[in-house]
């Protein structure tokens, strides 16, 4: 009996948690299926309306922005290019750098180690103005390279890979060395296959991180052609129903990634612990 009561309490508390996390999104979603006129007169809605297809297709394909130069579809494309670029570049450079740090005798190793890891202290938000100036000197404003490179300049992934490599038993390298494996082969044939879970987790993390960038694209893109979804949200005008629909669409890609790959993601994080 007491067991029954305590489990009821557990479910009750969890349901309140669910309400807090789910209801706000549901209300925005339900409202996005009504016409703007209806929302303007009746406020936010809890039940679905019948303008779903109308609103969503209008937002996806309509030209918007100050100069009507971009559609939401193009913004999604831009966000995907940016997020994929950031994730790919971070994974490759960090995987390599961590390998260089852990598996080699490097001259000035301590110096290089600090050169890489002190960067964790300086997130992009702290160097936003000078970064913009550097990018304009390099002529990278309004380019994908400009959106991707400064955000990939992060040692967080290197830190994760380094921890992971350190947990791999030394015997692996000893055995490989006995077989006459060189450093490139060892990296490609042994370490990369072993790090698959880690690579996937870091890739997901960096993809969502890149997709969700707001301030940097806001500063780096003066041309509407390069607007991304998350920054477009604030600047996009349109009727209230259009904006609701855009908010809902904007959260779909990262949310789907996290829901379907949550196991992998959590596993990757905790492999280090």
């Amino acid at each position, binding site marked *: 009996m007491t067991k029954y009561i305590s489990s009821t309490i557990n*479910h009750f508390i969890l349901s309140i948690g669910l309400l807090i996390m789910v209801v706000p999104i549901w209300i925005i979603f339900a409202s996005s299926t009504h016409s703007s006129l209806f929302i303007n007169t009746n406020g936010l809605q809890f039940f679905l309306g019948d303008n779903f297809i109308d609103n969503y297709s209008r937002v996806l394909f309509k030209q918007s922005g100050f100069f009507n130069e971009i559609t939401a579809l193009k913004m999604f494309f831009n966000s995907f290019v940016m997020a994929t670029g950031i994730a790919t570049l971070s994974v490759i450079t960090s995987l390599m750098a961590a390998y260089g740090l852990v*598996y*080699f005798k490097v001259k000035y190793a301590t110096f290089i180690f600090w050169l890489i890891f002190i960067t964790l202290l300086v997130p992009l938000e702290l160097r936003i*103005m000078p970064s913009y100036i550097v990018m304009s000197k390099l002529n990278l404003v309004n380019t994908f390279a400009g959106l991707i*490179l*400064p955000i990939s300049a992060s040692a967080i992934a290197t830190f994760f890979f380094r921890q992971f490599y350190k947990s791999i038993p030394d015997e692996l390298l000893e055995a490989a060395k006995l077989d006459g494996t060189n450093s490139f082969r060892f990296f490609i044939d042994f370490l990369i296959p072993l790090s698959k879970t880690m690579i996937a987790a870091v890739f997901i993390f960096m993809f969502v991180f890149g997709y969700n960038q707001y301030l940097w694209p806001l500063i780096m893109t003066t041309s509407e052609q390069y607007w991304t979804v998350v920054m477009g949200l604030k600047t996009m005008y349109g009727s209230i129903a259009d904006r609701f629909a855009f908010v809902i669409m904007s959260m779909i890609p990262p949310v789907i990634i996290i829901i379907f790959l949550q196991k992998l993601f959590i596993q990757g994080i905790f492999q280090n612990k």
Partner: protein
Amino acid sequence: MKKVQFKSNYSQYFFLAPQLLILLIFLYWPIIQTFKDAFTMQDAFGFGSQFAGFDNFLFIFSDPSYFTAFKFTIIYSFVITLITGSIGLLLAVQANKVMHGKSAYKTLLIWPYAIAPAVVGVMANYFFSERYGLLHHLFNNLWGFNWYENVFDAYIYVIIAGSWKQISANFIFFLAGLQAIQKTVIEASIIDCKSNIRRFWTITFPLLMPTTFFLIIINITYAFFDTFGIIDTTTIGAPGSETKTLVYKAYIDGFKGLDLGSAGAQSIMMMIIVLVITIFQFRYIEGKIHYN
């Protein structure tokens, strides 16, 4: 690092080079620029600049609005850490206990983690707008809520908007921490101590200490940096500039006010704060609290 390593004269640099190159161009160059800005004074028209010593730092320390931002950032990080940490822990403990529907709860509680802060801000905007806002109406009926004019109400607005998605992050990590505790420890403690609540505070919670400290750092960093998107889409610092975080203020001063010197000095002050937090993390957390 490793006892067994490759001995090579050049191939390690091949592996290190790509990352070092990106860091040097896109991180060190801007950082050096930041330091240069912080120690120079530019004239109002941007024609010339001269070495200014610590003038920019003296300027921000004598600026009352800097202290307003400082105070708000401290309050904001503290409240967000407290709210999201305790709700996240409460939900994680419950989710760890239930037999049925565990994965459904987990999935539904985890997904707001993926939503961008700026998107959360835009959503919060609707709930707190005078025209459509359910929360605005609710609070307005309770005590005459008005965030355009009342600082306390503006705090409530940005705290709710800022905490919401971070509950998910705390939930994920606490749940993973709880699941990592060995079953035998819990079973042994059940024999010794019958009270559920006492057992939680004396056995389970101390075992979660590493996770807790990790999350405190994560939450503080979140409140410092990631909330930029939330502030920029909700209050924009309103009523006056009481809800500007340090990062937001530096951005406004630098990008909108074009005062590079002051923005640079503010950035360096924040680097020092991050450095202090990191040293604290390494010294205290990595050193002392270890149960595995």
